[in-house]
């Protein structure tokens, strides 16, 4: 039997004004288990807390009921008080007689009546409380960063800087991501490569960082502090540790007609290739879809020219298993496919391009060596039309686009327009927009420069149709401010395609049991207060996988995610929430129902030998809850048909006792 102390708080007149606190403490004195009951002006004050401590000592209390304000306010306070008085903090229950009683009821009689009932319910619950101790689990002091773009690079560098080992898994042959493909960056116009490639080199040279390029995560098991991850390293048919990146093989390779994905297919590369000059790791990769040696065993030129002897046609995919304490998702974004946007003639004309293709066209390392030439005839375009919001901010009913704003397009389009006018003042540049959104430091100034100093024609309105005619692109558009239709004969049309999460994100989210929104962006644990954490403990979010972001934002989020990881890895042990589910193995059917509803993957099954009543033994499948992963929602307890699954701190018996006390 518990020995319960009841402490009724006046909260000055906040409670005492509409609740007869003396009557409440008197009434609760007679409840089963209650050995002491009192009331005081401010229970949360030092004096009030001392009163509780004294009562615990004097009356040998085993449980405490505080009738006071919301548990969301002071539950933690009174739990600490209990712990200081020497009883388990989870032997405390709060009856909320302020927010849910005195503040909403005006009449003393009904207020008091209700307060007594709420107190009784809390007493009934405490009678069934058991001391709870948070579980502890160790922390593997190594982090995994999935994705090697600027987000992943920055996160990895920051974590490594704090002294923890980090592995980066990148599915492409090199790290660098989308930023490596960009020409200049807004609003300062410094070149992307100049600021990114030193960071890539830092990553390569940092002895705390390992890069698994051309690799993918194929399996994730475990939980915060203790993830077991399987990484599949695709065979690149080149020994990474031996290849010097000299490039002799790429020059000599006879198969040179492979669309170069780094330049978005606007030029060709060889079957053995290094994506770009500053690639990290700078090693060659053989594309098995095009290599004649791998396809039909006829060639072997690269092997002959490789002085280091790094070519290995027999290389196999390799699986690496590693333990991690924290996982950062930095899977980034891609422009959406333009296939559904027939009105812009993207698939009909080579001179209708996306903004990312435009980046490559203006990049000194791009297919035109930085000269702005139209892809069809390599002539200099004199009239360029930029179309904003292609696939962004679409109506919910428009199946081809996205409802959200892709955020970065207004600024990069202003950049493109400005750079074009700067380099080629003879070019007419039109930008069609819905709104120009420039809410960043020095962003609006940048956009205004494009309009005011560089004479870019900004026109509010959407382009309705682009029709290729001869060597021109007939652009039909509306000017909403002038309220008239426009017809422009353009040489080049640039589409600011919406961005979407990388396709690898969805299967990864399933592996991580991390949640996603309907657009496949990862969901944060709290949109405002925990923006870089996933709801799944130990999984953090960096960059555009969480939502569209520009580089400054991505880098700051990457740093924030790193600091969260460092905070986690700095701990030697993790203490969990003790209010978790647990299964009574004697009653468990092993039916997997609970596992199916658990949002955290906290439940696994094991076969256990049981001694049966008839003295035989039997192997039974039983559910096991990992208390370090369980967050205590209790969904499994209701799904469980036998009632074997129960939630500590909110047990079936406790809730039913509350129901009974209220309904008595």
């Amino acid at each position: 039997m518990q020995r319960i102390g009841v402490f009724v708080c006046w909260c000055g007149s906040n409670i005492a004004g509409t609740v007869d606190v003396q009557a409440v403490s008197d009434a609760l004195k007679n409840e089963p288990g209650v050995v002491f009951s009192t009331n005081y002006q401010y229970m949360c004050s030092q004096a009030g807390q001392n009163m509780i401590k004294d009562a615990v000592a004097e009356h040998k209390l085993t449980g405490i009921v505080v009738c006071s304000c919301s548990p969301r306010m002071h539950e933690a306070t009174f739990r600490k008080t209990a712990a200081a008085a020497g009883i388990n903090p989870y032997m405390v229950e709060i009856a909320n007689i302020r927010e849910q009683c005195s503040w909403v009821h005006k009449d003393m009689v009904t207020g008091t009546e209700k307060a007594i009932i709420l107190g009784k319910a809390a007493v009934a619950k405490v009678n069934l409380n058991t001391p709870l101790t948070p579980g502890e689990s160790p922390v593997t002091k190594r982090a995994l960063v999935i994705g090697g773009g600027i987000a992943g690079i920055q996160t990895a560098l920051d974590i490594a800087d704090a002294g923890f080992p980090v592995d980066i898994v990148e599915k492409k042959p090199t790290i660098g991501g989308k930023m490596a493909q960009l020409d200049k960056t807004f609003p300062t116009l410094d070149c992307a490569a100049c600021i990114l490639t030193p960071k890539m080199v830092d990553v390569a040279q940092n002895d705390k960082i390992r890069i698994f390029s051309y690799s993918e995560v194929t399996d994730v098991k475990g939980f915060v502090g203790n993830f077991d991850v399987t990484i599949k390293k695709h065979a690149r048919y080149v020994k990474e540790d031996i290849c010097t990146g000299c490039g002799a093989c790429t020059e000599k390779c006879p198969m040179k007609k492979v669309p170069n994905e780094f330049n978005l297919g606007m030029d060709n590369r060889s079957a053995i290739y290094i994506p770009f000059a500053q690639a990290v790791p700078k090693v060659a990769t053989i594309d098995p879809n095009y290599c004649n040696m791998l396809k039909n065993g006829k060639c072997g030129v690269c092997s002959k020219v490789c002085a280091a002897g790094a070519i290995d046609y027999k290389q196999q995919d390799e699986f690496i298993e590693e333990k991690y304490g924290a996982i950062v998702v930095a899977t980034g974004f891609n422009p959406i496919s333009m296939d559904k946007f027939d009105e812009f003639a993207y698939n009909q004309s080579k001179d209708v391009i996306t903004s990312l293709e435009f980046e490559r066209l203006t990049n000194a390392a791009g297919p035109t060596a930085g000269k702005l030439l139209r892809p069809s005839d390599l002539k200099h375009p004199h009239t360029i039309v930029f179309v904003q919001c292609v696939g962004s901010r679409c109506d919910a009913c428009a199946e081809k686009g996205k409802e959200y704003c892709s955020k970065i397009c207004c600024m990069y389009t202003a950049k493109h327009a400005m750079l074009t006018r700067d380099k080629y003042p003879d070019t007419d540049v039109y930008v069609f927009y819905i709104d120009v959104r420039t809410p960043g430091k020095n962003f609006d100034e940048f956009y205004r420069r494009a309009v005011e100093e560089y004479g870019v024609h900004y026109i509010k309105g959407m382009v309705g149709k682009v029709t290729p005619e001869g060597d021109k692109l007939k652009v039909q558009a509306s000017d909403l401010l002038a309220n008239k239709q426009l017809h422009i004969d353009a040489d080049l049309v640039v589409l600011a395609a919406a961005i979407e999460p990388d396709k690898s994100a969805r299967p990864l989210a399933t592996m991580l049991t991390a949640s996603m929104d309907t657009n496949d962006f990862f969901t944060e644990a709290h949109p405002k207060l925990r923006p870089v954490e996933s709801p799944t403990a130990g999984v953090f979010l960096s960059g555009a996988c969480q939502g569209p972001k520009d580089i400054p934002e991505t880098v700051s989020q990457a740093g924030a995610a790193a600091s969260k990881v460092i905070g986690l890895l700095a701990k030697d042990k993790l203490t969990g929430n003790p209010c978790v589910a647990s299964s009574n193995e004697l009653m468990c059917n092993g039916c997997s129902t609970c596992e199916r509803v658990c949002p955290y993957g906290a439940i696994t099954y094991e076969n256990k030998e049981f001694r049966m009543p008839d003295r035989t033994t039997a192997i039974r499948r039983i559910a096991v809850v990992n208390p370090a992963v369980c967050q205590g929602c209790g969904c499994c307890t209701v799904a469980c048909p036998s009632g074997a699954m129960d939630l500590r701190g909110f047990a079936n018996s406790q809730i039913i006792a509350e129901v009974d006390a209220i309904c008595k």
Partner: protein
Amino acid sequence: MQKITRDQLIEKAASLLANGTVSCVLGWQKGEFDYDITPAVFDTEDELKANFVWNDFCGANFSKYLVSKTKKCEGKILVFLKACDTYSFNQLLTEHRFDREKVYAVGIPCEGMADIAKVKAIAGDGISSIDCSGEKMAVTTIYEDAPVMIDAKDVLAERCVNCKSKKHVAYDELMGEDGDVIDSARFDEVAKIEAMTPDERFAFWQNELSRCIRCNACRDICPACTCEKCVFDNPNSSVENKSPANSFEEKMFHIIRAFHVAGRCTDCGECSRVCPQHIPLHLLNRKFIKDIDSFYGDYQAGAEVGSRAPLVNYTTDDLEPGEVFERGDN
């Protein structure tokens, strides 16, 4: 009359015993009366020849027995499954309740089982023997010398009149020909109750449920009720009780039981078959099935192993609980 004969089943069982495929056979044997057929385990051909029964009263669904028998029997168990039984068989596999490797399932065709209450309604009480081997069922009573001849179609059990599937969804071997899933009228009765006014519904169910004697037969026969320990037997569940000492259980037993099997109930109809008070318990289960079908899309528990039951699944645009009343069923 069943298409497949007792001798064919015995022959099959005996050969599987003889070649060592199985070490025992789960089958039917005669109980107190000819119509009172009970499940039994047979170890030898002799036992089969002596006691094995197959006729219009072999309604018992063996799936549930596999949960305990597979743990006890060395080697494989031969189980005969009617089409409807195979759904329960799959559902139990989905829930990992027995080891598939320990079972040799033989699917058998079924022409529908008889309801003894309907037989008695025609032939009267005092039945001394029933012969199902002929075209018509010959029912002899202690009062008459000549047997009453009954067409099996006239005494089909409700669940067989509304048979949902003659298709076997699980077996190692099939005897006879497989049938199809049937577009049955099994929800008509539910719809009829839904069409009543709330007062009429209440009166209907009060009349039905007030007969319950809490004998637990429905729970004990139910192939979805295979819990290691039932909440109603568990002193820590706060709802435990076997007698009306606690009024909660008396009243709520059937709602809770139906809810516990919602999404898992294959509508095998065993609960109504065994109810000594003839409470139409299947109408509770079918209400859940009908609702699940109409709210969340058609779902047949046990149709495939490993399917995600509706109550452990969701979509983000599911119907709101308040909307269920706006669906025009009252």
